[in-house]
């Protein structure tokens, strides 16, 4: 069975030639949650955007393949690629405050996509949306569907966005730090909700986050990213039990713990950073030779 998402050797550069993704390979199997963890600026979001075909125009993919359920995205015509991505993927965005159009009511915003892009009937879309709102535990769907986004709280909006992401039964959802912009108390509920819907719908998720605590709760596999390079890849349980790469160990060391809040907040060690820099330089050196 082919992977739901298979990225092989993906490299991307900025106009000044700087690489932002360094031969990234990662696969997400059907129904699996793959966490993508790293510091800000490590290229986590960039990978998500590359998969969804919405990279900023300044970033150029220079090599590598991306396959969505076996279909090579690079070989499709732009229109066919858009249709494929639109039908099989969805995004749970980072900031629920800007991810909904402020001048349109929630209801039409949610059903529109099902009706216009996927060609569902209005009734079917409406039923589906209500069902999903129920699944994300929105108790008064009537009011929510009639509301404008600013009339809902951040947590409610994120629930709406989660419902919208699952509505068309995509095979793959990219969740881009979906809890970062939320209150700590709401974060937990939202995370639980995503995990629950993921199990029920059997959707594969590429879960982008910087929070190792979240990784431990939700994912089966983890890729640790540094400066656009995957430095370690493992089963989540194995990674937490025995991190192999020094950077992963350092990241774990930097995760706050309730039992020992001050001692646990160690910055990443100088020696580790120097080792990483050398590793990156070596990779770039090796990459430049065949690519001129």
């Amino acid at each position, binding site marked *: 069975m082919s992977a739901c998402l298979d990225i092989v050797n993906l490299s991307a550069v900025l106009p000044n030639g700087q690489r932002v993704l360094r031969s990234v390979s990662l696969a997400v199997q059907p129904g699996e949650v793959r966490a993508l963890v790293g510091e800000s600026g490590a290229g986590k979001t960039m990978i998500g955007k590359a998969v969804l075909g919405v990279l900023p125009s300044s970033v150029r993919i220079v090599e590598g393949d991306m396959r969505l359920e076996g279909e090579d995205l690079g070989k499709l015509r732009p229109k066919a690629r858009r249709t494929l991505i639109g039908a099989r993927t969805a995004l749970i965005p980072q900031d629920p405050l800007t991810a909904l159009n402020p001048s*349109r009511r929630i209801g039409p915003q949610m059903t529109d996509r099902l009706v216009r892009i996927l060609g569902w009937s209005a009734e079917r879309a409406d039923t589906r949306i209500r069902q999903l709102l129920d699944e994300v535990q929105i108790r008064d769907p009537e009011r929510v569907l009639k509301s404008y986004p600013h009339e809902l709280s951040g947590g409610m909006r994120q629930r709406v966005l989660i419902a919208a992401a699952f509505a068309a039964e995509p095979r793959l959802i990219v969740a881009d730090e979906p809890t970062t912009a939320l209150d700590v108390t709401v974060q937990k509920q939202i995370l639980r909700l995503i995990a629950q819907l993921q199990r029920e719908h059997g959707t594969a998720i590429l879960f982008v986050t910087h929070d190792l605590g979240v990784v431990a709760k939700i994912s089966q596999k983890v890729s640790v990213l540094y400066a656009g390079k995957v430095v370690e890849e493992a089963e989540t349980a194995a990674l937490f039990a025995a991190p192999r790469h020094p950077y992963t160990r350092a990241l774990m060391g930097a995760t706050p713990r309730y039992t020992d809040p001050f001692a646990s907040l160690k910055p990443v060690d100088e020696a580790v950073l120097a080792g990483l820099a050398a590793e990156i330089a070596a990779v770039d050196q090796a990459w430049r030779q065949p690519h001129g």
Partner: protein
Amino acid sequence: MDKARMWRRGVSPRLWLAGGWLLLALLAAIFAPLVAPQDPLAQDLMLERLPPFWLDGAEPGYWLGTDSLGRDLLSRLIFGGRIAFIVAFAAAIAACLVGSTLGLIAGYFGGWADRIISRIVDIWMAFPPVLFAILLVAVLGTGLSSVILAIAIIDWTRFCRVIRAEAMGQSRMDYVENARIAGYGRIGIMLREVLPNVVPSIVALLSLEMGIAVIVEAILSFVNLSISADDPTWGGIIAEGRLSIHQAWWVLVFPLITLILTVLSFSQFGEALKARFDPVLR
């Protein structure tokens, strides 16, 4: 619920005062033959330079007095309002359609479309507007349609610049990216996601532009380049009033007050409407 809240917040004096004056002036202009106390063109040298009603020597039926040819000032202002409103609506809507469309395209698509449209706007705005208007009317010939055309040709840039900036901001929003992921086409996104968010600004600008069109029409008729000299226009009356300021100040003052109130009302009405249209401010 929506409606109830709208009413609660709805008592903005700005909206009602401005809207009230505009409605009054508009109705008077539409029903001018019924409301105007006198024939605006009827000259009567026995009645020349009658003062307004509260001064000695006023005649009943000539509420704001008469000009040097004995024509009733109030009737002339009411009939002048017809031309003012026709020009305001037609010219502002034409300028809005052209300017907003180009602005939306430049702001949303960016790249070459933006570069070309923005350069044209820059060049356009280098012309002094009033001179440009006078020149255009001189070339096109006087008459209602050339005045409208001239104003639209000059002022579309106003819409273009503002709407371009707004569309540009909108196109970077996450919901636009979401729509792209969902598979909407570029034009579909522009119309469904971006346009509704710039509508409040378009409405405000449209109302402001109507005020500007009233001024430009007054300027053009002041220099006798607007409509034929016989039809009363606010600018024309002001020009006449200027000549007889020492004998009959009212011929200058009343059309000026009318003009200022109308222009001010248009801009205030637009601002108030913008607040009303914007779902976040609402």
